[in-house]
């Protein structure tokens, strides 16, 4: 292979690697992570796999009554709800909505589940 050919190939390989490195840090959209922090796994793993944890845990919780404090939707919302409006779904940059809108994946969870931080909900509904 000629020298320009090798250079071209190297350039191509390098350019393929760049987005992978960047994907770990910056997201191409605005997102309000609320209080943030990570308790279950690191953010990159969670970004890819949170739905598997949720779907597994939901069957355990509903059908067998085995509730896991950590992988509990309410627990996720408690930290990730916006500090401004206590919700993970209220605005286009809310924690759940931002990614799901970008990826064009509809979330059904909040047709039944509350997207509001439980402590805030209790405060509002206390008599």
């Amino acid at each position, binding site marked *: 292979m000629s020298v320009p050919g090798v250079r071209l190939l190297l350039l191509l390989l390098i350019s393929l690697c760049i987005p992978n490195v960047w994907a770990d840090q910056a997201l191409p959209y605005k997102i309000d992570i609320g209080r943030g922090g990570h308790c279950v796994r690191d953010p990159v793993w969670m970004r890819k796999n949170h739905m598997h944890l949720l779907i597994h845990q939901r069957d355990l919780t*509903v059908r*067998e009554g085995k*509730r896991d404090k950590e992988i509990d939707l309410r627990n996720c*919302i408690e930290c990730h709800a916006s500090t401004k409006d206590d919700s993970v779904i209220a605005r286009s940059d809310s924690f759940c909505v931002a990614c799901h809108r970008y990826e064009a994946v509809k979330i059904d969870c909040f*047709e039944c589940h509350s997207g509001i931080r439980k402590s805030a*909900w209790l405060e509002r509904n206390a008599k």
Partner: protein
Amino acid sequence: MSDVQRRNFLKTSVGVAAVAIAPGLLLFKVAHGQSDDDSKVRWGMLIDTSNCAEGCNECVKACNKENGLSGGLAPTDSQWIRKIEIKDVSTGHQFALPMMCQHCAEPPCVDVCPTGASFKRYDGIVLVDKHRCIGCRYCMMACPYKARSFVHAPLHDQNPDVPRGKGTVESCTMCVHRVDEGKQPACAEACPNKSILFGNLHDPNSEIAKKIRAVASTQVRADLNLNTGVRYQGI
């Protein structure tokens, strides 16, 4: 092959065959709402109708508040518990009682559910898994107690502990979110006359098991042999 080797080989093969067959048999058993009489826990209620005051609606109010129901009485409004006043016309004897899901050991709603959404938990609580419910309402027709409701309109601002949504059937959950935390159901806690006794029917030392042994209690529609978890005293 010696006799011992032969014997060991046979033992192992029988074991492997048993494991291979057992999952099929277990699936068959789980698919039907059969009673798990060997379970250590079966949550139940004993309702003393002689204490249940006519006109009192505290249990219904508490249920509505706890589970985020509107409390409306239109045909499309959800009712998980309702107060019923009954009069025996021949004697004039009149009394009131709360009626809700009876948490049957042999629930007809579970038998008819085409998706496996209606199910009975290991502790006897009959629930709808709304992740699987398609809203066909067969269970509502099968229930002899009219205990189930269908959610007709979109809901907002649900209690974070009680997910409810349009297009699914729902009913009394015996406040499963409270029971799992070791608390009483909202109605039992709210009753001013302590007419609703909640507890574990399978624990011989629990208050409810002792009382059920001591007093005469009735199942509503006992003729259906559903073995209800909610029993009534004084009817």
